[in-house]
Protein backbone atom coordinates (compact mmCIF):
# COMPACT_ATOMS: atom_id res chain seq x y z
CA UNK A 1 0.00 0.00 0.00
CA UNK A 2 1.35 3.40 -0.91
CA UNK A 3 2.28 5.80 1.85
CA UNK A 4 3.01 2.78 4.01
CA UNK A 5 4.86 4.79 6.62
CA UNK A 6 2.15 7.35 6.98
CA UNK A 7 4.31 9.84 5.16
CA UNK A 8 2.67 12.33 2.89
CA UNK A 9 2.45 10.44 -0.35
CA UNK A 10 1.36 13.62 -2.15
CA UNK A 11 -0.21 12.89 -5.51
CA UNK A 12 -3.83 11.82 -5.57
CA UNK A 13 -5.95 12.77 -2.63
CA UNK A 14 -7.50 9.33 -2.89
CA UNK A 15 -4.51 7.87 -1.07
CA UNK A 16 -5.18 9.94 2.00
CA UNK A 17 -8.88 9.12 2.00
CA UNK A 18 -8.24 5.41 1.64
CA UNK A 19 -9.66 3.96 4.88
CA UNK A 20 -6.71 1.62 5.18
CA UNK A 21 -4.35 4.58 5.28
CA UNK A 22 -6.24 6.32 8.06
CA UNK A 23 -6.42 3.10 10.04
CA UNK A 24 -2.72 2.52 9.64
CA UNK A 25 -1.89 6.06 10.71
CA UNK A 26 -3.88 5.80 13.88
CA UNK A 27 -2.64 2.33 14.72
CA UNK A 28 0.92 3.53 14.34
CA UNK A 29 0.25 6.46 16.65
CA UNK A 30 -1.58 4.49 19.32
CA UNK A 31 0.66 1.44 19.31
CA UNK A 32 3.83 3.47 19.31
CA UNK A 33 2.58 5.21 22.43
CA UNK A 34 1.63 1.95 24.14
CA UNK A 35 4.57 -0.19 23.15
CA UNK A 36 7.66 1.89 22.73
CA UNK A 37 9.20 3.19 25.92
CA UNK A 38 12.58 4.68 25.46
CA UNK A 39 13.38 4.31 21.76
CA UNK A 40 16.35 2.00 21.24
CA UNK A 41 18.50 1.22 18.25
CA UNK A 42 15.85 -1.08 16.78
CA UNK A 43 12.49 -2.63 17.61
CA UNK A 44 13.21 -5.54 19.92
CA UNK A 45 11.13 -8.72 20.09
CA UNK A 46 8.89 -7.65 22.96
CA UNK A 47 8.16 -4.36 21.26
CA UNK A 48 7.27 -6.12 18.02
CA UNK A 49 5.03 -8.55 19.88
CA UNK A 50 3.36 -5.67 21.69
CA UNK A 51 2.75 -3.84 18.44
CA UNK A 52 1.21 -6.91 16.84
CA UNK A 53 -1.07 -7.43 19.83
CA UNK A 54 -1.91 -3.77 19.89
CA UNK A 55 -2.91 -3.83 16.23
CA UNK A 56 -5.27 -6.73 16.83
CA UNK A 57 -6.84 -4.99 19.82
CA UNK A 58 -7.18 -1.77 17.88
CA UNK A 59 -9.09 -3.63 15.15
CA UNK A 60 -11.28 -5.22 17.84
CA UNK A 61 -11.91 -1.79 19.29
CA UNK A 62 -12.71 -0.36 15.87
CA UNK A 63 -15.23 -3.12 15.23
CA UNK A 64 -16.83 -2.66 18.64
CA UNK A 65 -17.12 1.09 18.11
CA UNK A 66 -18.51 0.58 14.61
CA UNK A 67 -21.20 -1.77 15.90
CA UNK A 68 -22.10 0.52 18.81
CA UNK A 69 -22.26 3.50 16.50
CA UNK A 70 -24.50 1.63 14.10
CA UNK A 71 -26.92 0.57 16.84
CA UNK A 72 -27.10 4.08 18.21
CA UNK A 73 -27.75 5.63 14.81
CA UNK A 74 -30.44 3.08 14.06
CA UNK A 75 -32.05 3.79 17.41
CA UNK A 76 -31.95 7.53 16.70
CA UNK A 77 -33.59 6.99 13.33
CA UNK A 78 -36.27 4.81 14.87
CA UNK A 79 -36.97 7.45 17.53
CA UNK A 80 -37.17 10.23 15.00
CA UNK A 81 -39.72 8.64 12.67
Amino acid at each position, binding site marked *: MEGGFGLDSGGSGGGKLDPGFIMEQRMTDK*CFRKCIGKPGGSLDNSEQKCIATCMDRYMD*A*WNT*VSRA*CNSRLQRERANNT
Partner: protein
Amino acid sequence: MDSSSLSSAPGLGTVDPQLQHFIEVETQKQRFQQLVHQMTELCWEKCMDKPGPKLDSRAEACFVNCVERFIDTSQFILNRLEQTQKSKPVFSESLSD
Protein backbone atom coordinates in the same frame (compact mmCIF):
# COMPACT_ATOMS: atom_id res chain seq x y z
CA MET B 1 -25.92 19.32 3.01
CA ASP B 2 -28.67 19.99 0.54
CA SER B 3 -28.32 17.19 -1.95
CA SER B 4 -31.43 18.24 -3.83
CA SER B 5 -29.41 21.17 -5.13
CA LEU B 6 -27.50 18.65 -7.23
CA SER B 7 -30.43 17.98 -9.49
CA SER B 8 -31.45 21.60 -9.82
CA ALA B 9 -27.97 23.06 -10.39
CA PRO B 10 -28.15 25.37 -13.39
CA GLY B 11 -26.52 24.04 -16.51
CA LEU B 12 -26.29 20.58 -15.07
CA GLY B 13 -29.64 19.33 -16.24
CA THR B 14 -31.14 16.56 -14.18
CA VAL B 15 -28.76 14.27 -12.37
CA ASP B 16 -29.72 10.66 -12.68
CA PRO B 17 -31.60 9.95 -9.43
CA GLN B 18 -29.87 6.59 -9.11
CA LEU B 19 -26.48 8.27 -9.29
CA GLN B 20 -27.58 10.91 -6.82
CA HIS B 21 -28.74 8.23 -4.43
CA PHE B 22 -25.47 6.39 -4.85
CA ILE B 23 -23.52 9.56 -4.05
CA GLU B 24 -25.63 10.19 -0.96
CA VAL B 25 -25.14 6.64 0.29
CA GLU B 26 -21.40 6.70 -0.31
CA THR B 27 -21.06 10.08 1.38
CA GLN B 28 -22.99 8.76 4.37
CA LYS B 29 -20.77 5.69 4.54
CA GLN B 30 -17.65 7.82 4.44
CA ARG B 31 -18.96 10.14 7.14
CA PHE B 32 -19.83 7.16 9.26
CA GLN B 33 -16.33 5.73 8.81
CA GLN B 34 -14.75 9.04 9.78
CA LEU B 35 -16.87 9.09 12.89
CA VAL B 36 -15.88 5.55 13.81
CA HIS B 37 -12.20 6.42 13.32
CA GLN B 38 -12.53 9.48 15.51
CA MET B 39 -14.39 7.65 18.25
CA THR B 40 -12.09 4.66 18.22
CA GLU B 41 -9.17 7.00 18.72
CA LEU B 42 -10.81 8.87 21.57
CA CYS B 43 -12.21 5.82 23.30
CA TRP B 44 -8.94 3.94 23.01
CA GLU B 45 -7.39 6.57 25.26
CA LYS B 46 -10.16 6.14 27.79
CA CYS B 47 -10.71 2.41 27.70
CA MET B 48 -7.49 0.68 26.86
CA ASP B 49 -4.64 0.24 29.32
CA LYS B 50 -2.40 -2.57 28.19
CA PRO B 51 -3.34 -4.36 24.96
CA GLY B 52 -3.85 -8.00 25.93
CA PRO B 53 -4.49 -11.22 24.03
CA LYS B 54 -8.08 -10.16 23.51
CA LEU B 55 -10.51 -7.37 24.20
CA ASP B 56 -11.87 -8.16 27.65
CA SER B 57 -15.51 -7.59 28.51
CA ARG B 58 -14.80 -4.57 30.68
CA ALA B 59 -12.93 -2.81 27.90
CA GLU B 60 -15.62 -3.74 25.41
CA ALA B 61 -18.34 -2.32 27.67
CA CYS B 62 -16.23 0.81 28.06
CA PHE B 63 -16.02 1.24 24.30
CA VAL B 64 -19.79 0.86 23.93
CA ASN B 65 -20.46 3.35 26.73
CA CYS B 66 -17.90 5.68 25.25
CA VAL B 67 -19.71 5.76 21.91
CA GLU B 68 -23.06 6.39 23.55
CA ARG B 69 -21.72 9.17 25.80
CA PHE B 70 -19.87 10.77 22.92
CA ILE B 71 -23.08 11.00 20.92
CA ASP B 72 -24.96 12.21 24.02
CA THR B 73 -22.33 14.92 24.44
CA SER B 74 -22.66 15.96 20.83
CA GLN B 75 -26.44 16.21 21.12
CA PHE B 76 -26.25 18.05 24.41
CA ILE B 77 -23.94 20.63 22.91
CA LEU B 78 -26.11 21.06 19.82
CA ASN B 79 -29.23 21.53 21.93
CA ARG B 80 -27.63 23.97 24.31
CA LEU B 81 -26.11 25.99 21.49
CA GLU B 82 -29.52 26.14 19.88
CA GLN B 83 -31.06 27.42 23.11
CA THR B 84 -28.30 29.93 23.67
CA GLN B 85 -28.68 31.26 20.15
CA LYS B 86 -32.42 31.66 20.65
CA SER B 87 -32.04 33.89 23.69
CA LYS B 88 -28.95 35.64 22.34
CA PRO B 89 -29.20 35.73 18.56
CA VAL B 90 -25.75 37.27 18.16
CA PHE B 91 -22.94 34.83 18.75
CA SER B 92 -21.40 36.48 21.77
CA GLU B 93 -18.36 35.90 23.92
CA SER B 94 -20.51 34.77 26.82
CA LEU B 95 -20.25 31.21 25.51
CA SER B 96 -16.63 31.11 26.50
CA ASP B 97 -17.31 32.33 30.08
